[in-house]
């Protein structure tokens, strides 16, 4: 941990030093920021199921605003809501909306917000108390409601009958070619003032390596990177922005223990799942496969966020793994575990293969294979695999909100999210996390940093510790 901490510190220092090399500080207006995204997304709807929701949210945040927002220090601020107040039990939250307009010029009303939130979280009760006030009532207390409402899932979207989605954000979506290209232009009437760049343009599924080989990075402001891309850029002395190890690389066994539907695969024996957990050499995965851009995971939330992850046991113990596997098989070789991974993610392939190797050393057969869709719940439901290797973003810098979001992403019992959101003490959260991991249906593998190449002409590009982008203050040099 110390090593990674000092590395991060060094990176931060380098970034600060690099920032100090720019020759101006007040933002400049104008220009286009062009961004290369690693993955392709097909919809910008924050509520739609999407294979790469983190990529989608990078773009969606420009157009669809949440009621609150969290800054890089983890502090919550007003956004579409100008203020809020809970009842003493933290079950009823009243939010006052600011005066803002959707991109078609219509004013944002409490009714619009209620309609949008209902779509995001149908289990709560909403009331438009007056034109500018929304009341949210939840079945159980939620202490961190303002932080929760900052998650992109709760972005306010106005859905027109023809399927058009309207937002209130600083940029309007002006071109959308699913999976290929998106162009956002500055909203001149944005309540927070017109953004500095005239537009932001995204190229999806673009290989940085090809751009590098063709020496075509010049026109771009930023590009998402894979670990091999980082190495390539390091060698050419380029600036790389690394988040803290925030994304969770995790194995999810698809069949719950109580699954007994005829025709579906049987759940894998919990002892075999535990054996696989003990068989994984997480240090090697982090060091070799992730090229030290990750840290071994024993919990769902990373150590840097909670301070307690090390209390969760995930020790590499091959002898124990062998014994557990033997116990599970009752003397018969255990059945092979088919492990699906994201076909479009080269890192996932490497990690899955390493897991299969580690498992084989403990007498467990794991058969990794690539799938084109692994992250969405509908894809998982139709999948024939026993388990899937997922890379899940850390949705919030507030641990309880982040844990609740992960529980949702992993399809865990609703009590996990509920107890996370009710946690008032760190030990409550640890308890909720322990409960989520106790049956070994979810095996954390690593926490992975997000990496970004940043052109020197892009200023005020803020990457939150969890890898989210805050482009609110972005400006590009060379224009006025």
């Amino acid at each position, binding site marked *: *941990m*110390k*090593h990674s*901490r000092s590395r991060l510190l060094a990176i931060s220092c380098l970034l*600060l030093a690099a*920032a*100090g*090399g*720019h*020759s*101006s*500080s*007040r*933002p*400049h*207006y104008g220009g286009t920021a062009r961004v290369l995204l690693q993955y392709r997304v097909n919809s910008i709807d924050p509520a739609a199921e999407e294979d790469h929701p983190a990529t989608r949210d990078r773009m969606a945040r420009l157009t669809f605003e949440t009621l609150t927002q969290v*800054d890089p*220090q*983890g*502090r919550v*601020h007003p956004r579409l809501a100008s203020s809020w107040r809970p009842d003493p039990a933290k079950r009823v939250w009243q939010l006052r909306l600011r005066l803002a307009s959707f991109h078609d010029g219509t004013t944002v009303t409490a009714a619009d917000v209620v309609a949008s939130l209902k779509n995001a979280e149908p289990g709560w009760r909403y009331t438009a108390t007056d034109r500018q006030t929304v009341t949210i009532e939840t079945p159980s207390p939620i202490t961190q409601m303002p932080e929760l409402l900052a998650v992109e899932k709760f972005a306010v979207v106005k859905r027109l009958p023809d399927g058009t989605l309207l937002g209130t954000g600083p940029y309007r979506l002006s071109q959308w070619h699913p999976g290929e290209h998106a162009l956002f232009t500055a909203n001149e*009437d*944005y*309540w*927070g*003032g*017109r*953004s*500095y760049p005239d537009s932001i343009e995204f190229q999806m599924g673009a290989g940085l390596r090809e751009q590098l080989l063709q020496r075509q990075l010049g026109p771009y402001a930023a590009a998402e990177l894979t670990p091999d891309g980082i190495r390539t850029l390091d060698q050419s002395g380029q600036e790389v922005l690394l988040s*803290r190890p925030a994304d969770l690389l995790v194995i999810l066994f698809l069949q719950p223990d109580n699954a007994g539907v005829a025709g579906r695969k049987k759940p894998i024996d919990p002892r075999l799942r535990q054996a696989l957990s003990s068989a994984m050499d997480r240090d090697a995965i982090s060091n070799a496969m992730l090229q030290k851009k990750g840290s*071994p995971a*024993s919990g769902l939330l990373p*150590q*840097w*966020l*909670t*301070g*307690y992850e*090390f*209390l*969760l*046991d*995930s*020790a590499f113990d091959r002898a124990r793994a062998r014994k557990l596997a033997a116990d599970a098989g009752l003397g018969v070789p255990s059945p092979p575990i088919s492990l699906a991974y994201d076909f479009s993610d080269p890192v996932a392939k490497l990690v899955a293969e390493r897991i299969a190797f580690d498992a084989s050393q403990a007498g467990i057969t794991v058969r990794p294979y690539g799938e084109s869709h692994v992250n969405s719940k509908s894809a998982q439901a139709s999948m024939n695999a026993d388990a899937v290797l997922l890379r899940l973003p850390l949705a919030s*810098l507030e641990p309880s909100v982040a844990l609740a979001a992960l529980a949702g992403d992993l399809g865990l019992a609703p009590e996990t999210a509920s107890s996370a959101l009710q946690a008032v*003490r*760190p*030990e409550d959260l*640890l308890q909720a996390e322990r409960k989520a991991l106790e049956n070994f249906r979810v095996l954390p593998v690593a926490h992975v940093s997000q990496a970004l190449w940043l052109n020197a002409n892009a*200023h*005020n590009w*803020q990457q939150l*510790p969890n890898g989210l982008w805050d482009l609110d*203050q972005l400006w590009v*040099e060379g224009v*006025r």
Partner: protein
Amino acid sequence: MLPRLPSTQRCHTGPSLTLGMLKECYTSPFPHMSKTALRRRCCALLILLLAVSLFGGSAQQPPPSPLVAAAGDLVQQILSRSGSPSAVAITFQNSSAMSGEMQEIVQTAVFNSFRDAGVRVVKPEAALAEIQIIFSEDWQGYLWIAEIHEGTSTQMVMKKLPRPEHTATGRVPTLTVRKNPVWQQDAPILDFYADNQNLVVLEPDQVSLYANDGGQWRARYTLAINHEQLWPRDLRGRLKLNGGQITAFLPGTLCAGSLSPPSLECHASDDPWTVDHGQIVAFYSPRRNFFSGILSGPSAGASVVPFFSGAAWPSGDQRQWLFAGTDGRARLYQNDLSTPAAVYNSWGSSLAGVHSNCGSGWQMLVTAPTDNIHPDSIQAMEIAGREAQPVSSAIDLTGPVVALWTAGKSGETVNTVMQSTVTGRYEAFTLTVTCN
């Protein structure tokens, strides 16, 4: 029980709580534990003295350090959770960035808190409860974890607390830039005016008036700024007070009013702004964050490149101007505004002239060329001929400078507003230059 502690220091308590015996409780040594017992005792005493001085305590009644107080609170929580056993054994582990010295201070505080609560600290074999205290951390601060083992049951107490802040040491300057705090608030501050009686704060949507009430600023009135157009981002504004008359320049808007009776009228306007103490008057782009470069007032008819900030001052019988252009370059003009005499490339975009009794009598306060999401710094420069020379050490700030305006009757102060990256609050202060 603790599967992964990459950086861990362990300690086992002994039965004694006396200072001299403190170190003997450790079963696995820290690197600095291979000293002699005498040195250890001296060291422990020095640490306690350091703890007292570090947290600003006086010799008579040192206030408890935040960490010591937190240690006491942790012990209270442990006792509350464990039912106050009469004898406990304690082990410590440090997996945080907390220094060994600070850890010892906290451990001592933990021992003292148990003793004050009437609980004996004993060896594990004689203990009714074994307590393992782990000093961990998250990205925002420390997390102290206590695992309480009583018989077959294990309970846990966690305590979060922020890291103590460290202060930076300064360098030896030629001149000194003094920072005089005036006001801070959550809402943005664009400019301000303060004298002995009044504080006037220009905000995006109002002007706030405060009166001096026994050394405290008490809110008197807020005067709304009515404006038709949306404000641009990086909103800037300039406040001028003259004999109780208020003038506020905002992008595309001019407000005029008075302190008494309090009043303010705003209207759409493209009138030029007074940039400094009256020597530069310039037109501001109504939907952007810079001056267009077209000058008015004493330099009416002249124009320079668009600029973020500017200063003008006399030098002998010459006049000099300095403008921080929107292209990232600062340009020096001497005598006339047709051609720059020098160009400086490594300055920030905010600069302001300040009149002092030191050096040439005029210094330029200049921000660093950092992006405005990072902490900034301000340094005094003097222009000698065409050379710009730093004449003070840089003042490191805890956030970006959002406003830097020459103020005072003859430009003897500079109004500065910074947004702290630590607290998020806007801090208004004046800067002056004094001789060493």
